């Protein structure tokens, strides 16, 4: 197993002082080279799960193994791609891609060469010297992908990376990501709230419950690649998963509704 999560629990103290359980005994095993998508309603802790695997936070209990070894904090074998990309605005596109290699202490000449290579991989060769704010949303996510790949991680952790993009750009990036994944053979754990996207990309889709996050079900997606978002089989599999997800979404909406309903104007008091 490339990545294995054993009985991961995470609780935190809410502002009211009570302890809230965010993740409840998550067990997950991901094979090397596998593309696993994690879906769930918002607030189920799926992003938090990625942060834990990245080593940015510690679980309250449980163990995370990579290649059979417990992780020790962050490591460049597991690189995260954030929803709002997390690129460094004070660096150019090229310098962003170079950043991880620079931290690793890789020599300048080699860094330059690799940077060129990854710029070409994501079709941004002409934008090496641009700053991040000069790029479109889709281009920014491609830089984030290039920056992550440039450190040559075994595992890519993608946290709703395409959620803020328009549909056409997202389609394009799906194709590119699928191509990069099958060429590089890396392991990808991809978090999304979009079931269709999960089925289009993943070998397997893991469904989490709403608060506390538990693994509700897993679905093997045994469809031929390359896939497309509008494929009939993709839509049908997504439908199945969505039916189960809907229960969780309803629970999350109920929770929101109850939280919102509390302060009410008393009857009989005219405004």
């Amino acid at each position, binding site marked *: 197993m490339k990545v294995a999560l054993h009985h991961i629990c995470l609780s935190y103290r809410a502002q009211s002082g009570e302890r809230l359980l965010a993740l409840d005994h998550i067990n997950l095993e991901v094979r090397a080279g596998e593309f696993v998508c994690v879906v769930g309603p918002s607030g189920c802790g799926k992003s938090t799960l990625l*942060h834990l695997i*990245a080593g*940015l936070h510690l679980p309250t209990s449980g163990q995370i193994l990579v290649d059979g070894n417990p992780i020790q904090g*962050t*490591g*460049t074998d*597991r*690189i*995260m791609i*954030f929803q*709002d990309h*997390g*690129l*460094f*605005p*004070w*660096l150019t596109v090229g310098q962003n891609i170079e*950043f*991880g290699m*620079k*931290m*690793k202490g890789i020599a300048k000449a080699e860094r330059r060469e690799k940077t060129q290579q990854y710029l070409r991989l994501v079709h941004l060769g002409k934008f090496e010297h641009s*700053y*991040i*704010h*000069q790029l479109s949303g889709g281009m920014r996510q491609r830089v984030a992908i290039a*920056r992550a790949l440039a*450190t040559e991680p075994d595992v890519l952790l993608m946290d709703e990376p395409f959620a803020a993009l328009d549909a056409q750009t997202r389609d394009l990036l799906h194709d590119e990501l699928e191509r990069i994944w099958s060429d590089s053979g890396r392991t990808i754990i991809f978090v999304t709230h979009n079931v269709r996207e999960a089925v289009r990309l993943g070998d397997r889709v893991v469904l989490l419950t709403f608060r506390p996050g538990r693994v509700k079900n897993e679905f093997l997606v045994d469809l031929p690649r390359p896939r497309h978002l509008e494929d009939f089989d993709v839509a049908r599999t997504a439908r199945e998963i969505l039916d189960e997800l809907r229960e969780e979404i309803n629970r999350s909406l109920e929770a929101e509704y109850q939280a919102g309903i509390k302060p009410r104007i008393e009857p009989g008091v005219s405004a």
Partner: protein
Amino acid sequence: MKHAARYIIFYAALLGLWTLLAELKIWPPYLFPTPWGVGEALYAGFADHTYWIAIRVSMARVLIGYGISVVLGMILGLGVASNKFLEETMGGLLVSLQSLPSICWWPLALLWFGLNQNAILFVVIMGSLLSVTLAMEDGRKQMPRIFSQAGRNLGASGFKLFWYVLLPASLPFIVSGLKQGWAFAWRSLITAEMLYLSLGLGQVLMMGRDLNDMSAVIAVMILIIAIGYVVDGVVFKGMERHLHNKWGLTPAT
């Protein structure tokens, strides 16, 4: 063009008013000099190298003092922002200390360091350190968390994380604090220099008073303002423009 014209009109009017008041001789010339009297004093001061020396001495002091403030302030601010205990305890102390005029440190500095350059530097540092510290603390808190997460994720830690991520990421949020720190440093320096034979601009200013030479007093005041203005315009405006080009916008300025 229109902008420049406005400037010229405003300053011409100001000079005109000044000349008029001086020419009316309401006050004796040694109390209210003419603009060309001040111009002559400026020329004389530069011609006999007094002003050049004073500027060099003062600039050297403010650069050392402000430089120390920036380094110390960044470390302190970062420390306070990243430690809950320090934030709760020292945070309040820092804010209350800022209400103390920096020249209040002068008697203490005299007793500690004696009547010398170190006492002046101490006052300059105390004048600007708090601004930089508070700005850095605030900047660290305002800075989006994603930058430090991404930095750690990509293998930066310890000093590398500070130097390559936290520092550049917080720069847009602290540039106004750095600017304020500079202004405080410059003011504190001149104040402290006025208090003893220091060779700096502050002392030259007091020398004008001792010689009853109002033209020289105003000439040095103009110099002090001009240097403050040039540093602000060249260094800090340049920094803001640079940040603007990179980030696309300069938040918090």
